């Protein structure tokens, strides 16, 4: 993140667009908040004092750098040299904390007193509640009613950390609706509140802000690969994409290195050809969701379609505008994995490497079975989170399989 000056051709432009995608399609009520952020975020996050505190917390509080682990048994099975970037070992169990640490420091610098966030799987909600406790700021997390039921341990974690969890009861009652409610809260609290968006979605500058804060993932990968492989890049980086923050972080420093294949794995749900899916690039078209022009799943009339994925963190009908651009420009390889393939990949990692991955990350792992690797290829799978929060789902499938 030290390279504030470097601009990739895949970076956001001055109008807040990645190619055809992005922008800030916000109602006037949000204009002062978003403008304040746009005018200040780069100055603040690249200031010496911010960097010192951010880096310090990432090291001593989050436990970074996260290991880059050579998964030997997985490598043997799939015939490539497979590394796992262990974001699952971060404090709070996922990559989400990289972003919330950065945004809470930014919010403090902007003089905000109250934090709001949306959450799907609860990982971003927990990461937000955590940094709010750390910085003694009021925290309100919006979560879809459906997700509150399927991610109960994370709801309890947020409450223990002192956050207020508000159930989003509109629409499909999942991540999209939680995001709507958080945006409505921000409209109603325009002065003292900062909205910590959890992914590379929303109005400019959020996609760029979150990508920059998450870019620590690929920054570390470069150093770690240099040490282990004698070159700072892999042949392939694989990450799951809901909104796409872990993928944006894992891809960030390789965007301009065309030798690196960037693989984004979307959630196919029951299958990309069914209506129970969250595979946005396969099923979506251009439009505006949550104030950003991007690809989203919608009807012919422009109504946003309710997605489905077994993974609450990928259950989102859009993707971040940076990913829409990577898809359309052909720079990214977009694939998908079904619920079933992902659960199977999750169990496989348990047995081969002794790691229970989050269901989101299991989608990235499911790609290994579909890919055709060459023997000496170096592949990094971003293991974005751990599976503790998904035990109820895993146990259900596990018991089913043993019958």
């Amino acid at each position, binding site marked *: 993140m030290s390279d504030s000056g470097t601009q990739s051709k895949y970076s956001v432009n001055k*109008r807040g667009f990645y190619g055809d995608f992005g*922008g*800030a*399609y*916000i*109602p*006037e*009520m949000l*204009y*002062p908040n978003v403008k304040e952020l746009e005018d200040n975020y780069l100055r603040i996050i690249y200031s010496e004092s911010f960097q010192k505190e951010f880096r310090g917390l990432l090291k001593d509080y989050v436990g970074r750098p996260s290991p880059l682990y050579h998964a030997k048994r997985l490598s043997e099975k799939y015939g490539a040299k497979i590394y796992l970037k262990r974001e699952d070992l971060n404090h709070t169990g996922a990559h989400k904390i990289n972003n919330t640490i950065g945004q809470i420091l930014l919010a403090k610098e902007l003089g905000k007193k109250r934090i709001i966030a949306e959450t799907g799987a609860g990982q971003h909600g927990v990461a937000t509640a955590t940094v709010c406790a750390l910085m003694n700021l009021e925290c309100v997390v919006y979560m879809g009613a459906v997700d509150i039921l399927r991610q109960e341990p994370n709801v309890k974690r947020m409450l223990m950390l002192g956050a207020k969890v508000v159930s989003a009861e*509109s*629409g499909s009652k999942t991540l*999209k609706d939680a995001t*709507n409610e958080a*945006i*409505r809260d921000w*409209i*109603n*609290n*325009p*002065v003292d509140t900062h909205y910590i968006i959890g992914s590379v979605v929303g109005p400019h500058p959020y996609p760029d802000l979150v990508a920059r804060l998450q870019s620590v993932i690929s920054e570390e990968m470069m150093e770690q690969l240099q040490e282990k492989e004698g070159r700072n890049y892999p042949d392939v980086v694989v990450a799951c994409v809901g909104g796409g923050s872990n993928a944006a972080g894992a891809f960030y420093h390789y965007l301009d290195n065309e030798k690196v294949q960037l693989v984004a794995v979307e959630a196919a749900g029951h299958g990309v050809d069914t209506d129970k899916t969250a595979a946005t690039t396969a099923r979506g*078209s*251009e*439009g*505006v*969701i*949550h*104030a950003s022009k991007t690809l989203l799943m*919608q009807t*012919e*009339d*422009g*109504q*946003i379609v309710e997605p489905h994925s077994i993974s609450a963190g990928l259950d989102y009908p859009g993707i971040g505008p940076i990913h829409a651009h990577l898809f359309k420009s052909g720079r990214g390889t977009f694939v998908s994995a079904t619920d079933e393939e992902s659960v199977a990949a999750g169990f496989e990692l348990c047995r081969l490497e002794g790691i229970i991955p989050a269901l989101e990350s299991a989608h990235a792992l499911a790609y290994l079975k579909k890919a055709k690797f060459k023997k000496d290829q170096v592949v990094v799978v971003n293991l974005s989170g751990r599976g503790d929060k998904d035990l109820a789902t895993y146990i259900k499938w596990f018991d089913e399989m043993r019958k």
Partner: protein
Amino acid sequence: MMNRLDLLFQKKESNILSIFTTAGYPKLNDTLPVVKALQEAGVDFIEIGIPFSDPLADGPVIQDSSTVAIENGMTLKLLLSQMEDIRKEVSLPILLMGYINPVLQYGIENFAKKCSETGVDGIIIPDLPMREYLEDYKQIFDQYNLKNIFLVTPQTSEERIRFIDEHSNGFIYLVSSSSTTGKKAGIDGAEEYLSRIQKMNLKSPTIVGFNISNKESFLKATKYASGAIIGSAFVRAITNQADVVSAAKNFVHTIR
């Protein structure tokens, strides 16, 4: 033909009453009878909401009406075809209010053209920001004599209000407080802001909206602006009513 909004503002400078209703609500074919009832009850202009699945700037009442309207089968395409029938019986200025995504899917140029053909006088798209409007949309809307209405809030800076005024060609929509629609009862606390705007002597007429719910708040708002818009309170008044025409007229008669 001259834009109906321009005609309205030429002959009337104060006490203008506008009502917002959601298209296809409470029933799919209620748009025409409701709009006709509003004209007969003496409303000055009408906003018809294009239902959207994710209405970010709206509170629960309009959200719920949108959800019902979509379930009823309302689409932008159908609304524009209903407009043809509405225009046979209604001569008031009509604005469509909705979010950018359904308009993008319809196609901007097609939308503007169809609006012009069916007698839509203007549009309010809260999530179409000024910058995008000026660069990508203005030319098309102007070509079809379609007014695009901008919002101003208590947090909008004076400089930006002047900028919006300069680029407005219908009226300026004064959002009474920083909130989603129908969030607060009444506009207490907004008077200082409304008075501040009044003293700016803008070239565009101003109409106050959000949280205007009854005669009291309507009279308060129109002290400072040319008129006011009632949305959520009206939608609530026609919800669960067997006779929407009477319900619509009765509501307007409580205002004036």
